[in-house]
């Protein structure tokens, strides 16, 4: 039974840890499906986290925080769009620039406004998204097997967790069942076909980036307002890049993206859980190894285990009308 509880706990933290990855991964899915590479997921999450925590703490409202996180993150996405769509700049350079601006400006503004070494004040109850306890969760907790699964895994997460997982079928539906999704997929494959069909390539890609901004904003808000009680500098800690790796894993498909993010979340959860405790047979595994595992796994799997991951064909290429 101890093992079972331990497994449930690891799975529970798997869910918590995969949420920011999942949101960022879906965010990347929108932009990359439209043909805009977005290495700036990391930066947009970071500004989202900062804006969310700062606004929540000043206005004492979690929802104002979330709104501000989305707003600022979308604004950064628009900068990326302005550079790479309107001015046809290099998307990687623009994305990297956004990451640098995000890392620097959050610390500077945080220090200037709150004087806590770049942190935002610790969020009080009501300023953060608290766990939602489902009806009957406490009552069934002691029922074997089902009890802990219901109480730990299903119940007791914040609103944003449920939102993140609902985004998976929603994203699928948008991409494959709506006009916007059809055009979005088309513009990432062959923008000239979209252009000759009388649809604006630029406006379509901007809308895709707005979706990206919204989702990275939510991801950032989750980091600073759910997982942590406030903003800490560089708190995204590479999650934006792992989300990109997950996106490649997932071959740019929403449901696959969820599984890829759960896998990375699981590795993270296992790394934390196993910290310092020896594994059977292998013995003690250095923490650094466990932390490096998602990256190692990405390299190994991408080197041939998942089959060919074909990115959207127009990805990374600014659209110029052919002569």
């Amino acid at each position: 039974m101890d093992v079972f509880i331990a497994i449930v706990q690891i799975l529970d933290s798997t869910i918590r840890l995969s949420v920011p990855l999942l949101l960022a991964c879906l965010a990347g899915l929108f932009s990359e499906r439209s043909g805009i590479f977005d290495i700036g997921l990391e930066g947009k999450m970071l500004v989202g986290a900062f804006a969310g925590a700062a606004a929540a703490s000043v206005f004492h409202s979690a929802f104002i925080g979330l709104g501000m996180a989305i707003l600022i993150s979308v604004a950064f996405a628009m900068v990326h769009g302005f550079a790479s769509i309107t001015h046809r700049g290099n998307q990687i350079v623009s994305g990297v620039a956004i990451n640098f601006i995000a890392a620097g400006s959050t610390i500077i503004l945080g220090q200037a406004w709150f004087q806590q070494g770049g942190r935002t004040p610790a969020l009080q109850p009501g300023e953060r998204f608290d766990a939602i306890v489902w009806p009957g969760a406490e009552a069934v907790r002691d029922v074997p097997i089902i009890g802990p699964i219901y109480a730990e895994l299903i119940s007791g997460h914040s609103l944003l967790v449920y939102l993140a997982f609902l985004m998976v079928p929603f994203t699928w539906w948008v991409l494959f069942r709506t006009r916007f999704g059809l055009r979005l997929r088309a513009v990432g494959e062959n923008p000239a076909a979209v252009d000759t069909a009388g649809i604006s390539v630029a406006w379509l890609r901007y809308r895709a980036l707005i979706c990206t901004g919204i989702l990275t904003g939510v991801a950032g808000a989750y980091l600073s307002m759910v997982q942590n009680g406030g903003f800490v500098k560089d708190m995204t800690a590479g999650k934006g890049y792992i989300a990109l790796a997950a996106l490649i894993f997932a071959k740019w498909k929403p449901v696959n993206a969820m599984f890829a993010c759960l896998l990375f979340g699981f590795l993270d959860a296992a790394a934390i859980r196993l910290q310092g405790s020896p594994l059977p047979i292998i013995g003690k595994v250095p923490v650094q190894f466990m932390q490096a595992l998602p990256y190692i796994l990405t390299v190994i799997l991408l080197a041939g285990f998942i089959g060919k991951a074909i990115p959207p064909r127009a990805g990374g290429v600014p659209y110029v009308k052919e002569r």
Partner: protein
Amino acid sequence: MAQAAIELIGINKSFGAVRANRDINLEIARGTIHGIVGENGAGKSTLMSILYGFYQADSGEIRVGGKPASIKTPNDAIALGIGMVHQHFMLVDNFSVLENIILGAESDALLKSSIAKARSELDRLEREYGLEVDPDAIIEELPVGLQQRVEILKALYRGAEILILDEPTGVLTPAEADHLFRILKQLKEQGKTVVLITHKLREIMAITDNVSVMRQGTMVATRETSKTTVGELAELMVGRRVLLRVEKGEAEAGAVKLAVKNLTVKDSRGVTMVDDISFDLRAGEIVGIAGVAGNGQSELLEAISGIRHAVSGSVMLDGKPIDLTGAADPGELRDRGLAHVPEDRHHVGLVLAFEENENSILGYHDDPRYLKGPFLNVDAIMADAKDKIEKYDIRPGNPRLKTANFSGGNQQKIVLAREMEQDPGVLIVGQPTRGVDVGAIEFIHKRLIAMRDQGKAVLVVSVELDEIRSLSDRILVMFAGRIVGERGPEATEGELGLLMAGVERQEAAL
């Protein structure tokens, strides 16, 4: 003349310093097939792109059905009933036929009703025009001819009354092209207006009612097709008389220079592309390999020229074997007197970012003529480049110019000059005149025949039947990786076309 479907009045368009269209006037009658011919870069595609709203004219007026029309975007053109089938298909390769058809013409925000509507509409178009295609097929899995059909359906689905086709037959087999022409005639009978842009005069003569000729951005003449000749149109296009068929004497075939035996080549996916091919190439003859693109010609060329490795078989050059394991160094083959003009000059034949003089010695840069100790002898290279420019009439005649800035025909001349001037014993040429205009074609053909008359062995691979027929002393036809027939230069187009489509083989199998 019937009422005009489209009138263009005084259209001007410049791209930077280049005047792509100057003062174009054109009237296209309703319910006719109107051909527009001209050399590459004559401004045909630009003019049609203006009509389709892809570009804006700098000045001029467009009238559709007698009324002045403002066409600022493709949407405006579509709304006026103008549809376009582009030279490079505007399809999303990994979408289904239905998805491509509805893209941009969806009836509401959700796809379900649009797809249902498109499905029934496709059904109707199929019945009316015989345009059969599986609505659920994925575009990249369809042959080119069907992809083009999807483009036509796309236009018809949007209610096109006027259909513009830009170089529609460049990618088609003769049989597919004939089928396309039948479809176009049927569209005409249904009252649609068809505008056909091409540089193939044969097509113009075959199906158009009227023809307009463009040259260097101007409209030089419009004729009734029945009252003109291929000769007159060619002259109008080029501005001088051209030889449509280069004169040549009998071949005096000598010793075997290149012997290919039981050669089998697979592509990177492991599919057999060249299947047990054998033939000889003799000194003093031109052997042409005809076939629809993708039937193994490219792989055959690559194997012989040492770029791609062969699975089995042998190739003897002057009686000595060529290493086919893939370890063969094309440089070594060059030293043994085998020169190769690759099919794809942009990716294999040239470095576009280099200056002309650098490309004109590329691959031969180890030749002591171009070296001064371990360094390149720039003076010698420049002198050599100038010499080639003069001999091959490469324009503009500036060896310092970046190769990307030369037109396709002149780029091809740069490659040809480089390979021919090495005086090779065997010359292998892939698509000698792809994307090259009439004047340059004539020049290139003359050069190839001159090589032959000097006793060189020349192997030409081309998808242009006219070219194969006018150059070759012997014609080999490839289909599905095999040589399905050998004919003399007197073979008719129809006969070769059937072989290219693999018809004879299928009949033999029955």
